[in-house]
């Protein structure tokens, strides 16, 4: 009897969370899943079309281009953010002059609103008064201004640079936090034993921050896969769809063409890798906590 009462109390206490999950997550998700099997367009009733949207997408070369671009964008950005984040953390972990000032400055990109940083980068890349072309022209590295957002490959590189610039601080903070827990005595002992900087990094630093780096990299992968604003504001997926990723394609189809069913089908198709990544993060975090 007591057990039953306890159960009731437990359910009662859990109910706000359950209601929250039902109303905010499960219901919209279920509804979205249903819509992805319909020909839903804005203002028009939905008709069930089974896997029609999914089959259309799988046959659409634009979808596959967006998949390829999404993979390139995410993979390159995450690798670069991890590498530079590690460098940043290692530098900021040293007793350098003005360390606190550098820490604040290097974390700035993360704190600036995306819209502000994207417009700043738009100006940096501009061939009219843009600082990047100006500097390269000044040192005679180029003969005439380059249209950084005017060619598919260059545009992809340019949007990756902005994403990396914004994302390095997160990786840096995470790895720096990991570095703080590595004992100084261990380094001193290794140095006395004659271990050089490279050996110390590969045999001591890296294993010590491996867990936190992997977790931060996976988190960053999830965010990068979902990144929309940087690409949308800089290139809108162009030129020649060279920076068209799944999020921009979904937005274009959903909100400009108003084909909600198809747009949601794209979003649903991006979910399996995201779920796997989130599952990985959750398992790994809980295992670490244990």
């Amino acid at each position, binding site marked *: 009897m007591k057990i039953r009462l306890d159960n009731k109390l437990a359910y009662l206490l859990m109910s706000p969370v359950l209601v929250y999950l039902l109303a*905010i997550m499960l219901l919209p998700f279920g509804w979205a899943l249903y819509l992805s099997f319909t020909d839903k367009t804005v203002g*028009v009733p939905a008709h069930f079309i089974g896997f029609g949207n999914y089959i259309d997408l799988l046959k659409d070369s634009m979808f596959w281009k967006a998949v390829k671009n999404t993979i390139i964008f995410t993979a390159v950005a995450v690798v670069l953010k991890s590498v530079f984040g590690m460098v940043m953390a290692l530098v900021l972990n040293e007793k350098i002059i003005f360390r606190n000032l550098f820490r604040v400055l290097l974390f700035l990109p993360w704190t600036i609103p995306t819209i502000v940083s994207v417009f700043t980068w738009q100006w940096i*890349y501009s*061939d*009219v008064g843009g600082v990047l072309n100006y500097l390269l022209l000044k040192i005679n590295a180029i003969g005439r201004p380059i249209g950084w957002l005017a*060619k598919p490959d260059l545009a992809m590189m340019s949007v990756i640079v902005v994403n990396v610039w914004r994302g390095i601080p997160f990786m840096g903070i995470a790895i720096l936090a990991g570095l703080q827990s590595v004992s100084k005595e261990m380094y001193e002992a290794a140095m006395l034993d004659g271990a050089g900087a490279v050996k110390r990094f590969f045999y001591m630093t890296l294993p010590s921050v491996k867990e936190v780096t992997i977790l931060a990299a996976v988190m960053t992968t999830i965010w990068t896969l979902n990144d929309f604003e940087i690409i949308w504001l800089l290139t809108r997926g162009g030129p020649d*769809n060279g920076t068209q990723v799944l999020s921009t394609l979904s937005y274009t189809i959903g909100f400009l*063409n108003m084909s909600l069913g198809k747009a949601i089908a794209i979003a649903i198709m991006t979910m399996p890798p995201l779920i796997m990544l989130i599952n990985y993060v959750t398992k790994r975090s809980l295992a670490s906590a244990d």
Partner: protein
Amino acid sequence: MKKTWWNKVAAVTLLSALLAGCGNNGGDNAGNSGGNSGASNAAGSSGAAAPAGEKGKLTFWMKKQLFEDQNNLIVERAKQFGKENNVDVNVEVIAYEDFYPKWTAAIESKSVPDVSFFGYQEVGQFYGQGVLEDVSDLVGELESKNGEIRPNVKKAVTFGGKQYGVPFWTESQVLYYRKDMLQAAGYTAPPATWDEFREMSKKLTDPGKGLYGAGVGYGKGNSDAEFLTRGIIWSFGGSVDTQDGKTVIADSPETVQAASFIRDLFLTDKSTPPSAIGWDDSGNNKAYLSGQAAMIFNTGSVLATIKKDNPDLYEKTGIAPYPAGPKGTFIPGISNNLGIFKDSKNKDLAKKFIAYILAPDWYKTWVEAGAPLTGPIYTALTKEAVWQEEKNKAFVDSVDGFNFLGYPGEYNPKAGEVFNMRVVNDTFQKLLLESSYTPEAAIKDLQAKVQEIYNK
């Protein structure tokens, strides 16, 4: 009933989640507007002003104008309407880019604003989805009271003989040219034909000095480019749409000829700035303001800006209509409108509000505050002194030569979709980026893509 309620909640939550996922702030606004509109619905559906003592509510979504004066004037006007009619008018001034997510959420949740701004493409798109109210009676009433509304502008929002939007203001793309640069190159007049435009652009281009004759861009979302390309294609006798609303007639020698002209301008003559293929709508403005481009095609926004901020450049600037092609001059029309959703519960009040906004005495002040970007809809107002000024005249005169999306056929929702999906820009970006991609192949692909949209 219960199902409808669940559907609404789910639809709003889902759209909000999608918006949040896309990192767009439109979601918050949509939520607000939904609430406001809901309140206005509750205020009563009689349509007329609320009974004494009970204040009605009216929501108005207005496009954010370039000039703050115009934004302030419209808010004041709406407040005045509220005072005179015992109504709380909630005006949301919204950037154009944020409209689509807001409209989408509003239509799906049936929490629509009572009056909303619409470009004519959207009027067509929403008419096709059956969500817009027929406002022919209001247009007729306005014309009988205030005089003729320019027929070409009305045409863009007329479907099956009925109007689904009330014209609010016109915008015309014209040719901007640097008089001093043309003079230095030995020209005394702006180009009258596209061939002259190409020849002059080539002569004016000097990459060593960072100067280019043609400030024409092709960014993915660039609406100026979508309009300009159509203007060029039409003037060569081609089309990107249909004659009958069904069969696409893009794949023609004339369209290929126009595509070759554009390709030559970019790739053979190299008369355009190096980054032009990635330009958004502000690209040509920046190029002209910085002195990088000698000629651009734009609406009145550039002229209004330089008149205020750069009088020297203003003096050096000449304005002319689009150059002519073998078939004449074709100007892609831009019309901006006010409309009412079918789901609005305050339709009569909304019509009264639109009539109040378009009362000529006040409207004249508002439209002239944005001159020459915002042109008047009433034929009589085009005779006012401000529109007879040398630099402003082309903006109102161009309206007579307006052609709309869908040309040579009538404007239709599919033509709007072709425009919104930037199918033309995509094709031309590819043409200008891939040297092995011929104009013939590009136009064949364009035909197939557009036909696919018309077939849906």
